């Protein structure tokens, strides 16, 4: 146990020094600290925040791995399709191949490295300046960010966005636990509004599509949502969407793996099932309403909105990133509603508004992240009214007594 003793000595040596938080962050990564309880409960449950965050990361890993292979697969598939070949995905035929892996890893791993590297440096700097311990919040954010950006996003843009997201989205509010907006979505929103050409359109979702645009080798990088929004035929089947053999942000295409992640989060009681379920219900309800509009004949095929409105309501869950948003983003406990009743309302409105934005904003058809950010802002208001109901009940009790 040499290392344990040596680290302990180092910790004592640097206690109270400026760099102590940075050292402790690394130390506590290896060892849970020797801290004992003072006052209050003398024993404590096994979970700490690191463990909680770690579970979320574990739930994201399948999506990341799939994203790596899918990046390669989409690239080669798009090239083949541009040549006029038909491409049928098969797990071991053309998906889990070394070619796909090397190409995908070469693009995705740098995204992960930049996201974690830049984000953690900012976190460490703030921890040292403010003299508090490095908090774990960024461990999840840093994993989410590479999964929700297009594959070809330039790394410097990502770095700028991460700095912005961590500083403005989190640290100015006082760090982990104090932020109003989901930091990962703040980063995505920054990218979306600062560099829209890299974040939307029909070129960015498949590696290589941008640089080949206008050349003889041009390939399509269109997502399903984009196709619907332009009233084009969608070339992917429902099973492709479910398994994830479609273009999209890096880690959000495979619905089955997202559902696996949802299962992990709900089973471990880390993610709120209330938010996940209510978000999906909200999305389905909005989808049903639009289906109703179409079948009532209020709009015809010539309408801009026809394509997305006529999508079967349940298919909305399989296209775009609504499922990913519901499972990994909406459930962020800090920026979500914090009361159980509030979570139902919060989730429902996210789903509802997501599909609304998706249908009514065909230029940028993905509305999930905007819907979540919007509801992040309203989450404290929702909670306020939920808590007020409890307060009112208490006041009523008092009045009954007095009467």
């Amino acid at each position: 146990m040499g290392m344990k003793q040596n680290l302990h000595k180092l910790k004592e040596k640097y206690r109270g020094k400026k760099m102590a938080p940075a050292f402790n962050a690394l130390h506590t990564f290896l060892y849970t600290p020797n801290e004992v309880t003072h006052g209050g409960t003398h024993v404590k449950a096994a979970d700490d925040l690191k463990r909680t965050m770690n579970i979320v990361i574990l739930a994201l890993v399948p999506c990341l791995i799939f994203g790596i292979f899918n990046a390669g697969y989409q690239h080669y598939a798009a090239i083949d399709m541009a040549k006029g070949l038909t491409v049928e995905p098969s797990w071991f035929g053309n998906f889990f191949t070394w070619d796909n892996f090397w190409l995908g890893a070469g693009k995705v791993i740098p995204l992960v490295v930049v996201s974690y590297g830049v984000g953690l440096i900012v976190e460490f700097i703030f921890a040292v300046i403010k003299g508090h311990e490095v908090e774990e919040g960024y461990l999840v954010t840093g994993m989410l960010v590479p999964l929700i950006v297009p594959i070809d996003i330039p790394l410097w843009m990502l770095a700028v966005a991460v700095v912005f997201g961590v500083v403005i989205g989190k640290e100015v509010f006082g760090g982990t636990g104090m932020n109003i907006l989901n930091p990962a979505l703040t980063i995505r929103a920054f990218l979306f509004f600062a560099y829209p050409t890299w974040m939307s359109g029909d070129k960015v979702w498949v590696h290589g599509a941008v640089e080949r645009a206008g050349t003889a080798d041009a390939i399509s990088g269109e997502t399903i949502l984009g196709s619907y929004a332009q009233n084009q035929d969608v070339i992917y089947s429902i099973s492709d969407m479910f398994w994830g053999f479609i273009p999209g942000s890096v880690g959000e295409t495979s619905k089955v793996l997202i559902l696996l992640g949802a299962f992990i989060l709900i089973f471990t009681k880390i993610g709120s099932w209330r938010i996940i379920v209510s978000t999906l219900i909200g999305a389905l309800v909005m989808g049903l309403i639009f289906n109703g509009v179409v079948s009532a004949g209020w709009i015809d095929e010539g309408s801009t909105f026809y394509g997305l409105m006529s999508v079967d309501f349940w298919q909305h869950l399989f296209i775009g990133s609504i499922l990913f948003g519901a499972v990994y983003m909406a459930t962020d406990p800090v920026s979500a509603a914090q009361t159980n009743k509030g979570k139902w309302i919060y989730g429902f409105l996210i789903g509802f508004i997501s599909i609304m934005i998706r249908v009514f904003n065909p230029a940028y058809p993905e509305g999930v992240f905007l819907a979540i950010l919007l509801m992040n802002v309203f989450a404290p208001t929702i909670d306020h009214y939920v808590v007020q109901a409890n307060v009112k009940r208490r006041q009523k009790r008092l009045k009954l007594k007095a009467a």
Partner: protein
Amino acid sequence: MSKDIRIKKGLNIRLKGAASTEISGAPRSRTFNVRPADFHLITPKMVIKEGAKIKAGDDIFYNKANETMRFVSPVSGTLQEIRRGAKRVITDIIIEADKEDSYRDFGKTDLSDAAAVKARLLEAGCWPFIKQRPYDVIANPEVTPKAIFISAYNTAPMSADYDLILADKGEQIQAAIDGLKTLTDGSIHVGVPKGGNSVFNNINGIETHNVSGPHPAGNVGTLIGRVDPVNKGETVWTIHAEDLVIIGELLANGHYKADRIIALAGSSVKTPKYYKTKIGAEVSTFVYDSGLNEENVRVISGDVLSGTQISPEGHLSFYANVVSVIPEGDDYEFFGWNKPIFNKISTSRALTFSWLNPKKEYELDTNTNGEHRAFVVTGSYEEVFPLDIYPLQLLKSCMVKDLDAMEAMGMYEVAPEDFAVTEFICVSKQPHQKIIREALDLMYKEIG
């Protein structure tokens, strides 16, 4: 007349080392300690000097804010030492005990005369057993409570079993109830374990409630919340069931007998069992009688959730009916934050496996299992918190000292111990009980 109260939200923390039903007599303690810190917010004014000879029941100090409220000696002996801490605050009052106790005689009390009962309790040092809500402090004698609440069901981990320690005390308890009944306009509510064999089932003049469910079902705060929550401007009193015995003895026979049967429990104790001792006795008299399994231990006067840490040479505190001894956890654990955990309790399933066998008894140490963080996780406290209060929101309003919000969200109804389970499971390792205590003190100062 009895009603059922079934609590669903909560958490039974099963620990190794619960006391067996054997009751032994502890060797008589050489010294006794009256610790003013046991009496929250009371400033003591000494009435005797070092070297004074005293009988059991003789005054030691009184409450500076209310001269009639006396604090008395649990034994006869000599006042050996008054220890002081920073700013000359009295920390310990050490009494060297005589071989045999002689008692100051207060005489019988007329149990139908409210003024006489109150005066007797105040002068004979039994008033501090009565606490009030709001604020969880010693009751203000000027205020008539709307009801008195007693819990005769202990659900805290490794706590004393009231059915056992009160088994043959029916006579004293009846006397205490008869006396206390005159002090309230309302009823005396007693929570008893459902299906248990509580002595309170045969006591007259009370309303019993059959309580079942996980901890904190047995907390008196849970009982109040279910029966008659405290509204703004109202006061209720709470008394520990075992203290009724001392009160009853005083009212019926005129003696202050600070006898208590305490449970000695914890995984560090060789033979956990019950001991007959007195309030303020040295815990070493019975801790070493029973023996310890290891050296590096923490001795707690009280249960592991809300008790006070004392040194192994320390003394039993005023309100404790259990002494818990558990291993200290001042060691690092390699990759303790991500490896699967089988030997600790958790309410999540985040690679923690205590959900696999809920009946297993655990050997927890005092390690915090992680560092202090801001509140992040939501929805977990509600699973273990049975009161009609939003625990997270109330804690946050306490932290920002928002008195209006605290009042609106139910601060008058709570005591620190009600937040013991939420503190235990807190992923952010926030000191919930301390937050609540400080906020109550602030409210007491500003409003009360």
